[in-house]
């Protein structure tokens, strides 16, 4: 009997591997790291990950349990992803099993086979469908979009490809099929998801785009990070496409990461129109099966371009050639719970490990990335001009102090809207707060709609007639009378998008209005309907949250109004100003195009705020420089490296007591590290738990990590108080 031991990463919060004996009837020679293994774990059976084959164990070999089955014959993850995961596990100090679980699609975590399922049939447009398309407008925009797409696919289209064209492609296909406008045909055996599509001719590059493409394309064989800073509309996507083409020409694959909100049907359609072969798309809106199929296509190298959100940074690639992170400043690249990794930072690490270029693109790069560019670690490529030569819309600060406001809108803003709408153009208003009003107030006694579980007010959603807590999700009907004094005179305080919509409908009764936020797009297909109405043109008011600000292109918009810039200027987080600047420019970027110059108006009670002034008069690079100076003076990232130990518990004192113990443990050996706290979180109670944190800060990253290793290990070993939930966040993006 061999004493071969399997060291297995098991998805559990315990930060260690577990030793098992090989399954009884297993071919020992076939065992290698990277295989999935089903093992008994406590009373459950789980899918673990074989990390190492060892000869001995610290435990009594007789007490070891045998694994139940080896699920793979070859490593499920390629070596470079394994290396990336190991690096991430060390850097983020997160339990190994959970780190590995994050890299695998759900079905593989459940033990599903890695065989690609039989390819789905291809969809074709029928003669009746062509006739319907030719007769002009159809009331269902999603159906029209799909038909139009299919009409251009002479060999039919893969259902996965259609998913990118409209959101609920399955339902749309069903509807089209019921009308006999489309039909599914079994695909020819030769082609695996390969659809013929006449690529559109690429547009000409301007000088800056061409220079950016040349710089990166000259360096495709080694690791280098490029920071592509291009104003909105400067054609960053075209640069990506050219680089991807260059990489494909060398028979390599490209991985593109985008924020969830930026992964729009338009973006995918553009990729498909230009790039040959199947595109693997990975995001949370897919079914588990679709996600697994895309993942397997990427791993087999059949999909040569992989587009995905945050977790796609772990996507397996057969021949990786370039990593691209679009909107690299977007906060959604940071996972905010569980395994708290930053996908942009991991993309840089992965590029370094693979020896391939990494392109980080944004109109408003994160200050961390700009700092790296200034220090020469990243190469800065700038696209200062909009494609087609349209001027950047001028930004005007509108001082609303002492102005009479109607539901958050000042007279001058309304007048500006009237002018643009009279010219048959579109106006876009941005307010990053959904619902009707953030507070319900009793006019007689001053009672506020406090959430039972959080230190926060419940937001009034008038259409649903409910109060909803945006922090814990708790909801209840709107009170008919004040719970404190019984008065029925309750009033909505402050503005959300719903309230703005009501006010604008009253102000502009004969102008079409489209509100776009998470509430108005909850129903499947509703986003497509709204977008197609916007693109239909004509005068119209668009109103929405950041959902409207990101990713979409609205050529008819000539006026952009930022309803409330003050929220961001005075946020509690030190990144609030940076976030606000990025949002302002992103929203502003929607205004105007070559033949119709745009304008941007920002309503604020703080027209002299220094950072706002710099941003408006000198642009983002100057803003970033000023903000970086402030960060340096205050010893904040990127000039300091942070880690945040968070704790929460149902009882008020328990979290703080745990953090105090952690601090006591730390004090004696915290060389080169500053410990701040424990302090209550800015919102101390959330979802019924009291939260507190301890902030660690160091000038040198090594100091921080050298300290964290033993400290976290000791906390895990000695402070297993089940009543306290705690977690470590390395490079936290939010301090609550």
């Amino acid at each position, binding site marked *: 009997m061999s004493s071969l031991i399997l060291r297995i990463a098991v998805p559990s919060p315990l930060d260690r591997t577990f030793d098992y004996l090989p399954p009884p009837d297993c071919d020992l020679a076939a065992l290698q790291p990277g295989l999935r293994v089903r093992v008994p774990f406590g009373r459950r059976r789980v899918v673990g990950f074989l990390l190492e084959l060892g000869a001995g164990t610290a435990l009594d070999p007789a007490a070891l349990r045998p694994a139940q089955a080896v699920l793979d014959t070859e490593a499920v993850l390629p070596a470079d992803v394994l290396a990336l995961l190991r690096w991430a596990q060390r850097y983020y100090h997160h339990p190994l099993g959970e780190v590995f679980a994050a890299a695998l699609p759900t079905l593989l975590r459940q033990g599903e086979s890695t065989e690609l399922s039989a390819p789905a049939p291809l969809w074709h447009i029928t003669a009746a469908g062509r006739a319907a398309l030719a007769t002009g407008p159809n009331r269902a925009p999603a159906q029209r979009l799909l038909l139009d797409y299919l009409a251009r696919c002479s060999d039919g289209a893969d259902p996965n490809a259609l998913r990118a064209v409209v959101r609920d492609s399955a339902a749309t296909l069903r509807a089209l099929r019921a009308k006999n406008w489309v039909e599914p045909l079994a695909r020819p055996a030769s082609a695996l998801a390969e659809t013929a599509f006449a690529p559109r001719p690429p547009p000409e590059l301007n000088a800056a785009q061409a220079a950016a493409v040349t710089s990166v394309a000259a360096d495709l064989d080694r690791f280098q990070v490029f920071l592509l800073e291009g104003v909105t509309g400067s054609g960053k996507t075209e640069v990506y496409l050219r680089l991807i083409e260059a990489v494909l020409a060398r028979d390599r694959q490209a991985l593109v990461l985008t924020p969830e909100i930026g992964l729009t049907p338009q973006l995918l359609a553009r990729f498909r129109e230009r790039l040959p072969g199947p595109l693997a798309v990975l995001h949370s809106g897919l079914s588990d099966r679709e996600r697994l199929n895309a993942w397997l296509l990427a791993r087999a190298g059949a999909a040569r371009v992989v587009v995905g959100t945050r977790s796609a940074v772990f996507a397996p690639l057969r021949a990786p050639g370039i990593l691209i992170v679009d909107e690299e400043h977007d906060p959604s690249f940071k996972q905010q719970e569980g395994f708290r990794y930053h996908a942009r930072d991991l993309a840089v690490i992965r590029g370094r490990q693979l020896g391939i270029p990494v392109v980080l693109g944004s109109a408003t790069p994160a200050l961390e990335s700009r700092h790296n560019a200034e220090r020469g670690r990243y190469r800065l490529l700038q696209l200062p001009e909009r494609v087609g030569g349209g001027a950047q819309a001028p930004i005007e600060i509108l001082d609303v102090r002492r102005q009479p406001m109607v539901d958050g809108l000042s007279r001058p803003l309304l007048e500006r809207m009237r002018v643009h709408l009279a010219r048959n153009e579109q106006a876009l208003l941005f307010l990053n707060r959904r619902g*009707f*009003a953030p507070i*319900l107030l009793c*006019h*007689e*006694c*001053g009672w506020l709609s406090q959430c039972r579980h959080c230190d926060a007010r419940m937001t*009034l959603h*008038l259409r649903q*007639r409910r109060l909803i807590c945006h922090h814990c999700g708790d909801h209840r*009907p*709107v*009170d*008919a*009378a004040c719970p404190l*004094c*019984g008065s*029925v*005179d*309750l*009033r*909505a305080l402050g503005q959300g998008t719903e309230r703005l919509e009501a006010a604008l409908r009253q102000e502009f009764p004969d102008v079409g209005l489209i509100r776009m936020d998470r509430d108005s797009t909850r129903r499947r297909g509703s986003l497509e309907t709204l977008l197609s109405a916007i693109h239909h043109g004509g005068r119209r008011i668009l109103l929405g949250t950041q959902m409207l600000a990101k990713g979409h292109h609205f050529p008819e918009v000539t006026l952009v109004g930022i309803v409330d810039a003050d929220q961001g200027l005075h946020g509690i987080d030190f990144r609030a100003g940076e976030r606000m600047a990025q949002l302002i420019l992103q929203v502003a970027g929607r205004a105007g195009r070559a033949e119709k110059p745009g304008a941007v108006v920002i309503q604020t009670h703080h027209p002299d705020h220094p950072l706002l002034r710099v941003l408006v008069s000198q642009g983002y690079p100057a803003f970033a420089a000023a903000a970086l100076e402030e960060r340096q003076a205050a010893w904040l990232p990127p000039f300091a490296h942070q880690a945040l130990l968070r704790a929460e518990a149902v009882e008020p004192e328990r979290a703080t007591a745990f953090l105090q113990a952690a601090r006591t443990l730390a004090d004696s050996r915290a060389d080169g590290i500053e410990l701040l706290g424990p302090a209550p979180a800015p919102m101390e109670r959330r979802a019924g738990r009291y939260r507190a944190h301890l902030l660690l800060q160091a000038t040198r990253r090594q100091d921080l990590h050298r300290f964290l290793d033993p400290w976290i290990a000791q906390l895990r070993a000695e402070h297993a108080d089940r009543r306290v939930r705690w977690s470590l966040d390395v490079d936290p993006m939010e301090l609550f």
Partner: protein
Amino acid sequence: MPFAPPADNCLIIAGRIAGACETRQSPAGVPISRFLLEHHSGQMEAGVSREARCRIPVVACGEALTGIAGPLVTGARLRVSGFVSRANYREGEYRLVLHAARIDMLDHESSED
């Protein structure tokens, strides 16, 4: 609701509407009408007749009452009965509001002035 045992709080007063009646909806959908009632009458005091004059804000909540109060215009005559309570809970402020429980329209003949 923190109510003490029922205590007397009843005001019946007649007069004209001064200014317009404004009606809005509370977020829960309860209609709320507000108007100012102007009262002018002759009363007896210590055996002597005298003039009584005042203005008091009236709140009428709920469909039944706002249905009567909502369409009223300046000068309309009516009798309101209900209870009084302070207008808000700001410290040191004790302005009163009449919360209507019943509103009766009065015809012109019963006018005293």
